[in-house]
């Protein structure tokens, strides 16, 4: 079996293939079948093109990974760490501002925004914990 050179195109091809199958099933089972058959054909062509390029051409991310030297990887690591830290602070500040606005104006929208941002903070924390645990165990 050939090696996948571009994972993104392969994933897009898979999604397009699923959409093509869904369009075919929808076309067979409904009366307004022509547009579903057209959609099926287009999705199938798109899936085939993506599958072909995933096995033949290396993607941009893969090219960057292959050409990156140790300093580039170190910088990417530092950038990711700082970005997560800043995102954390931004989300926290936004939660506090939403809560203050809620207490001032009693707007339910502000409360919903605060709750949503809180949930994002929790998800980010859990994600960081899981990824950190993975790298602790697997290096």
């Amino acid at each position, binding site marked *: 079996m050939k090696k996948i050179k571009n994972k993104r195109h392969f994933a897009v091809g898979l999604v397009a293939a699923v959409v093509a199958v869904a369009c075919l099933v929808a076309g067979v089972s409904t009366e307004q079948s022509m547009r579903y058959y057209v959609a099926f054909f287009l999705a199938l062509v798109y899936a085939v093109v993506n599958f072909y390029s995933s096995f033949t051409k290396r993607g941009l991310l893969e090219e960057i990974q292959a050409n990156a*030297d*140790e*300093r*580039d990887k170190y910088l990417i690591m530092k950038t990711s760490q700082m970005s997560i830290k800043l995102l954390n602070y931004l989300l926290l500040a936004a939660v506090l501002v939403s809560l203050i606005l809620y207490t001032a104006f009693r707007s339910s929208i502000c409360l919903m925004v605060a709750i949503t941002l809180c949930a994002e903070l929790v998800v980010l924390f859990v994600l960081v914990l899981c990824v950190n645990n993975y790298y602790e165990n697997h290096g």
Partner: protein
Amino acid sequence: MKTKVKELRTAAKMTQQQLADLVRVSSRTIISIEKEQYSPSLMLAYRIAEVFGVTVEDLCCLKENKELEDRQYEED
């Protein structure tokens, strides 16, 4: 981390790009090492040391850097 990369490179009349090509990194990495903005990995330090025919200890001034770190640790 202080290193002797610039000193050894100029003595060997080599450009940063030439050294980078020999040790399989980009010239930006060599520039960062010379400016003491980046510490090379063990393997990279070994490759550079091999190019100039010195030991890793001499190239990376390990004794000096260790003394500096120990002093900073004591101050903290």
